[in-house]
């Protein structure tokens, strides 16, 4: 165990952790954040996605040691119920959820990609989203929400 400082959603947290602990466990257990979720623990589904240095990162397979000192953004770091981030607002507007468990994967992956590629084509967005899963298959309206966000950014 050792003291590790994580910078999450703008706040520093010093935690006593085994340096090999996956970041997801620090976020969802020690910090009790609800955005990143355990889906597979294998980096296959994206439920645990966070944004580190502008990149979508799978926190279930990322040791805390690898990201200490970096700014880590989780889904709750984007916006709130009262004041959602534009990409969150787009999902609300499109009613783009069924069970909602995958929303973290979809929103964080799409945001990280579109922020770097605001003029991406549909095919490019699809390619960027090919490593995350939604088992309710809410694809139609989620894709519409992603496009809505992209269009708002382009304005």
């Amino acid at each position, binding site marked *: 165990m050792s003291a590790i400082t994580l910078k999450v959603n703008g706040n520093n947290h010093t935690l006593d952790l085994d340096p090999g602990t996956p970041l997801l466990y620090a976020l969802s257990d020690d910090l009790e*954040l609800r955005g990143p979720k355990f889906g597979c623990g294998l980096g296959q589904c994206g439920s645990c996605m966070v944004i580190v240095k502008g990149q979508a990162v799978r926190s279930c397979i990322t040791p805390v040691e690898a990201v200490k000192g970096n700014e880590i953004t989780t889904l709750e770091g984007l916006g709130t119920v009262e004041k959602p981030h534009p990409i969150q607002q787009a999902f609300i507007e499109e009613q783009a959820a069924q069970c909602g468990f995958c929303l973290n994967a979809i929103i964080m992956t799409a945001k990280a990609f579109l922020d770097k590629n605001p003029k991406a084509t549909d095919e490019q967005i699809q390619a960027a989203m090919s490593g995350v899963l939604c088992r309710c298959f809410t694809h139609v309206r989620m894709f519409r929400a992603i496009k809505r966000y992209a269009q708002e950014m382009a304005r």
Partner: protein
Amino acid sequence: MSESVSKAEDNAAMTPKALAALKRSGFSRRDFLKHSGALIVGFSACGLGVERGTVHAQVFQGVSPGAPPPDRLDSWIAIAADGSVTAYTGKEELGQGIVVAQTQLIAEELCVPFDRVKLVYCDTAFTPDQGYTSGSQSHPANFNHSNLSQAGATAREALLRLASDRLGVPVDQLSAKDGAISVKSDSSRKVSYGELIGGKKFNMTLDKNAKRKPPREWTLLGTPVRRSDIPALATGQFEFVHNVRLPGMLHGRVVRPPAVGATLVSVDEGSVQNLPGFVKVVVKKNFVGVVAQKPWQASQAADKLKVNWTPGTGLPSQADFYEHLRNQNPTRDTLLVDSKDVEQQMSHAATVVKATYHHPYQMHGSMGSSCAVADVQGDKATLWSATQGVWYLRSTAAMVLGMKPENLRVIFTRGSGCYGVNGADTVTYDAALLSQAVGKPVRVQLTRKDEMAWENYGNAFVLEERAGLDVQENIIAWDHESWLPTLGSRPGTGTPGNIITGLLVGFQPEPFAARTPAPDPTKYTNNSNGVPSYVAGSVGGTPQGTGAIKSERVLVHNVISPFWTGPLRSPVRLQNTFAHESFIDELAARAKADPVAYRLRHLSHPRLSDAVKSAASAANWDPRPSPKPGIRKTGLSVGRGMACVAYEGDNGYSAMVAEVEVDQDTGKVSVKRMVVSVDCGPISNPDGLRNQTEGGTLQGMSRALMEEMTWDDQKVTSVDWSSYRTLPFGFAFPKIEVVMTNRPEEEATGAGELSITVVAAAIANAIFDATGARIREVPFTPTRVKAALKQIG
């Protein structure tokens, strides 16, 4: 029936920590009661049945002892002093949007604004027992003339009578609006619901004669009211069961056997005792689990724990599995219909056509592996679970814990979409067993492998079809015989051994009751679409099916499955429909008839025929036989296919046109467009129906094209998302067009499983149209499509 209102019962079934956590969440029971005006009452077991709605419904086992009596209005609705309405329902939110629809229903019937209604669902401390939230039953159960809807109508009429007494004006001169009742001729004379009954009980039974508000007067039902949970879901604020945190809570992990049938030999507790955060190894018969301070520590302890198991009992070869199923003995045989003249008709037929279809085991594959939190202390327990049946879980978890059911409280807390019996119940047993062993609250989340290796899979199936055609190519006889492997299922009220953890601690699954030959049917049942849509469905001389073919026989052989099985979205109905709807297409092709016209020729049910016509019309269906003329044998070829279903015979109607592109060189199938019609009676929330229909369509596509559980001679080998493939978010999904038929004057039927049921056959039929190759085994992988193409040369 005896009722006793008790104050001492307050918090009776709650441990102190559970209570503390509830208080933190703002859901303290005492406060809740004060606010809502509801009184929780104790009841003796009374055997009353919650009415199931009038359309076909699953067997409901009767109300659990201790559940609020369903014939009492106060079991369903409470009005607080401030006029706010609390409604209690046994049908929960699984992501299908039923909570917003039920809230609309109560607001509509009671004439109050939508946001004045709070819906409380599936908590054994408060809510009626309506069995499982499953099988497309919520809409028929609660939106017709019983249960929640009838409670709403009863309450509105009761309030009108109270207002009539208060205002001295006859009921017919009063109108209800915005939570108040006023005199029609003088709207200044009014009285609010809070003034009439706020904080008090109605003390009356549900009135079967209370009139539901006619659909033409609806202002909320039938409109696309938005879901209130999405802002919290989208911003990471929503509390799933995975996020439940209790003071002093520990974390558990289970260690499952390495092979099917393996039993425990020994556990070396010393192998983990010095690990950081380690608390305890828990062993009960073949159940093994570890408890630690933190989840990562529990995970490491579970991985490092040295456990010796016997070898597994061995599994049949997957390569020959369908043949293995057909040769199983014993079987349990059920005849659904038998006109006794099928062989005679076949012998007169100009042509007899036969085909065999295969469907694999498939997974629920919930996005988040299943999770539960249990707080078992002494003789009390509180369980937070994503179960589909809180009352049933209370009963079977009590058996697993060796406790009295009345000392357990089960609180439904949303999980990842389940699509049927995923790991939610089993992980609740896991958490409960570990909590009982350490005397502290324990949270358990399964690993991906533990979820996938021990699921109650959607059934594999062998389905044989045989039909006789006359010289005009009309179908004169239809014979269907299938082999369906089952083991376990939902635990129901008393069979914890139906799921893995129950078995590991020593309970047995539902016994297999062999029966050969099948007795003659005495009453008609569609039996999960075992009966094809095109036959008359006659038992005792009365046709009750949806088709015109009078000579009919349907025989089902249940056989023992080597793997757990249980309901997976459109259970059995999807597999049967794949076979029936592929076969009618084969017959239409044999008759050189247009597949839509040929279907309509053999259907007798107007709503099912309408569903077929709606989808065909919206898709601009080009009437002609399949396969399409002039197919070239290489490169890309496009085609279209139709499939339809009367879900369970009368619980919703749907048809689909799929348009596909087949790469004949690689066997890859790309679905380009899916047009789907749905008719579930009155549409309660059109956006919710659309969302379910779209999702079901794509989920069905993933199951049809990719999904198949796999195993070797000892164990399941599809244990993660690289060994069990599903369509990812980023695939180029087809254009989906949903045609919704609203029938406000009909009974409400199921909705959420309509579209998924018809997908596989619609795609298979489109592949045939495009290529002339018939694919009779799900999933339609490139290898299988190539093999089918090779067969036709």
